[in-house]
Structures are given as structure tokens and as C-alpha cells.
């Protein structure tokens, strides 16, 4: 299949996915399960990475700024905040989640496909796309902004404790930098990226998993392809969103 055929099938899959659930009580239960699996399950990973990345980002800025007499020290707080909000907590976390969540969705659906569980749903008269994929997409769309906001807070906290605790920057300087020239639009920009990335990761991974055919080897391949295509789509959409929103 060429790229255009894949895009066509992906669009058809989405069309059948976004239909009314058979039973809302069951959909709600699945949604809560997905939010728990994707959101709560990813929290430790996102948390640890955010703290350490925030710490490293602030150290790198501090190392550069300390050697200069012209740049004010509060710049460390300002630059750390901007890096974390603009790129780290949105894009880098999305890339990490593409690996964790994307492969999990693709392998789950791929296994269901090769063990005929999806066929079993279809035979029962259930729209398997809507039943299996919709709660995953909606769950990830709902929880990803929270994950990213937590990542922002932890990233900035990591930066604060690293440079302030080591005495490189004074508490007042860092806090001034973090609050300086803060625009709500920056967070809106980050949230738009977050929602788009969540949709791309969950839908592309679901597409790859749902269309798996063969055996366990193919489930592995689908899983890998899901991660690769998700990452590529995140990078491409990041460029487009940034161009449209910041320029």
C-alpha cells in the first residue's frame, strides 16, 4: 500500500470511529479505564523525566549565563520556563508518550486482531472501531493536557531546586525570571499542541494496530511502525502549529 492508500484508510477508520457508542454506561467505564491506563500509568515516567530535564535545562542556562557579566541572572528562570512550556513539556513529552502509549495501543489492538477478538466484536454486531478506538482517543485527549501541565510544574520545580539549592542563582532572581513577561497565550499554544499530539499518537497507533494481519511478529512490526509514524507526525505538526500560532 502506498501513502495515499494509508491516508484514505486512516480517514475511513476515523469516520467509523467517531460514531455514537452503543451504550454510554459502557463507554464511560472504558473511558475511565483508558484515562487510568494512559494518564495515571504514564505519570511516574513523565514526572521523573520532567524533573530531570528541567534540572538539566536550568544548569545549561546557568552555566552559560554565569560566565557572562552582561546577561542578568534572572534570565535562567525565564529561559527555563520558556523552554519547558514551549517545547519540552509539550513536544518532548509527546515523543516519549508516543513510545509508551503508542506502542501499547498498537500492540493491544494488534493482538486483539490476530486472536480474532475484533472479529468476535463485529460478529456480535458491534462497531469495533468505535467500541475499541474511541475511548482510547477521547481518554488520551482528555488526560494529556493534565499530564503536560504536571510536566510543566515539575520541570520548573526541577530547574528551581537545581540552580537555587546549589546557590548558583538567588531565589528572588529565579522567581523574577520565571514570572517575567508571562503570556497566557504561551500556555494556550502549548495546550493546542498537546491536544493535537494526543490525537495523532492515539489515532495513528490505533490505525496501525487495528490493521495488523498475521501473527505475533506483525504485532511487533505494527507497534514499531506506530511509534515511528507518531513521532514523524508530531514533528511535522509541531512545525505547522508553531508557524501558524507564533508567526
Amino acid at each position, binding site marked *: 500500500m502506498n501513502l495515499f492508500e494509508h491516508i484514505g484508510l486512516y480517514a475511513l477508520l476515523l469516520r467509523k470511529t467517531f460514531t455514537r457508542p*452503543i*451504550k454510554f454506561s*459502557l463507554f464511560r467505564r472504558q473511558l475511565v479505564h483508558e484515562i487510568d491506563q494512559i494518564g495515571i500509568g504514564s505519570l511516574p515516567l513523565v514526572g521523573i523525566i520532567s524533573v530531570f530535564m528541567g534540572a538539566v535545562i536550568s544548569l545549561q542556562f546557568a552555566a552559560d549565563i554565569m560566565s557572562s557579566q552582561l546577561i542578568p541572572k534572572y534570565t535562567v528562570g525565564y529561559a527555563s520556563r520558556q523552554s519547558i512550556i514551549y517545547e519540552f513539556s509539550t513536544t518532548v513529552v509527546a515523543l516519549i508518550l508516543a513510545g509508551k502509549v503508542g506502542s501499547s495501543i498498537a500492540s493491544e489492538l494488534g493482538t486483539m486482531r490476530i486472536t*480474532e*477478538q475484533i*472479529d468476535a466484536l*463485529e*460478529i*456480535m*454486531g458491534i462497531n469495533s472501531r468505535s467500541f475499541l478506538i474511541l475511548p482510547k482517543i477521547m481518554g488520551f485527549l482528555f488526560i494529556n493536557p493534565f499530564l503536560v501541565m504536571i510536566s510543566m510544574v515539575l520541570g520548573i520545580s526541577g530547574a528551581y531546586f537545581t540552580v537555587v539549592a546549589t546557590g548558583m542563582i538567588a531565589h528572588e532572581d529565579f522567581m523574577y525570571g520565571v514570572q517575567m513577561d508571562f503570556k497566557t497565550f504561551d500556555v494556550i499554544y502549548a495546550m493546542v499542541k498537546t491536544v493535537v499530539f494526543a490525537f495523532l499518537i492515539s489515532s495513528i497507533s490505533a490505525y496501525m494496530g487495528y490493521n495488523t494481519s498475521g501473527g505475533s511478529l506483525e504485532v511487533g512490526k505494527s507497534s514499531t511502525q506506530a511509534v515511528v509514524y507518531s513521532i514523524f507526525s508530531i514533528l511535522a505538526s509541531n512545525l505547522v502549529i508553531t508557524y501558524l500560532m507564533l508567526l
Partner: protein
Amino acid sequence: MIEVKNLNKSFDGRQVLFDIDSTFESGKVNMVIGRSGSGKTVFLKCMVGLLTPDTGSVLYDGRDFTAADEKTRMMIRREMGKVFQMGALFDSMTVAENVQFPLDLFSTMGKGEKKDRVEFCLEKVNLTQAHKLYPAEISGGMKKRTAIARAISLNPKYLFCDEPNSGLDPETSILIDNLVSSLTHEFNMTTVIISHDMNSVFEIGEKVMFLYEGRKVWEGKGREIAGADHPALREFVFASELMKKLHNIK
């Protein structure tokens, strides 16, 4: 009753089913047999709509399933039960939850009624002790029985079984065969079983259709099969030494 008319199916230009016509009556165990690769599973998948035939039609009590719109197909599918070759049980659910799943989606029963129905279905397949176990914790035979219980939970009019006793020991195979047969008669279902197990054919096959290289070459009652004169069918039926010896003794 299910009527199949002029069913053809091909994949990438390679035809696997040729003009298949047949009628499967209700209250009877209908069997489709043939060698591996003869098109049995493709035939079954075309019947239940998992594959779309190139030409031909499948009629469920006069309703054309192949030409129906998506909504009608969904409605007809809710009258079907299918037992998959490997069971196709949902891994994340217990045995009881698997059986209850179709009830949760499509019935208007209350909690108590659903519980009773699950108990009834599990009792029918002798699995009342396993209702809290997960599919990974039960044997192949138990998985098949759970799949049968799930398939009959909504009182289907049509039951399809894809090699229900493959990979099972002879004793469990007979148990599964008898179970499917008794359920078919008790609930007056139209049952279609895909198999290449001659023992099943002789035990429960009331109507048998033999597929050879995608074509229907013989159709008749299960007990008539030993006297059939089609060379491919004779080769298939008497493939084992045991069957040959039994035939010679007779």
C-alpha cells in the same frame, strides 16, 4: 434457514470460492468440510460478513445479508453467535464477564436477570466452577466451551463454529460436538460448523457439504458420506489407516 446463492470470492485475482450454492436448515447441524486451504473459512467469513463476496448472496430467513445496508447487517449479526477456532475470548474479562458481555450491550435485562442468564449458559456448557477465571487460566476445551456459552447468551438464531474441536483431545472433542448438537436441537438454531474432523461428521453432521479447491463437490447427509463416490471426497474421508480399515471391515 440460511441460503447461499452463487457465492464467489477471490483475493488479488486468485479465486478461492466458485459459485457455491447451498441451504442450511434450522434445527439442524450443518457441516462444511474439506482439506486445509479448500476455502472453508473464507466461505464462513463470507457468510457472516467478515469478508465481502465478489458475487452472490447470503439470505438469512429471506433477508439478503450481502446487499443489506450497514444498519440491517448489524441487526442480523445480533441474531448470530460464532465460536471461533481459538475461542476469541476477551483476555481482560473473566469467563462470566465474557458470557455477560453481549447481554450488557444488547439486552434490556436487569443485573439479576443477566446473572441468571450467565449462570444458565455456563451450566449448559458445564463451566459453573470457572466463572471467575480469566481465559489465560483455563484449558483449550474450557475456552471453547466459554466461547459457546458466549455465543448462545443472546439466544441466537444462527450459530457458526469454526473448527470447534481443533486442538482438543478426542474425549473433549466429542463433548463439544454433542454440546453443539444438543444446543442446536434444543433452541432450534441454524448451525453451521466448519471442520475437517471426520469423527464430528459421523457423530453430529446432519447435512454435510464438501468443498474441494473452492468448489462444492458433494452435499448430503452425514451418514451417506462413506458411500459417496467423488474421488476427492473418498480420499478425504478415508485418509487415515483407521478409516480405511473400518471401511474394509464394513
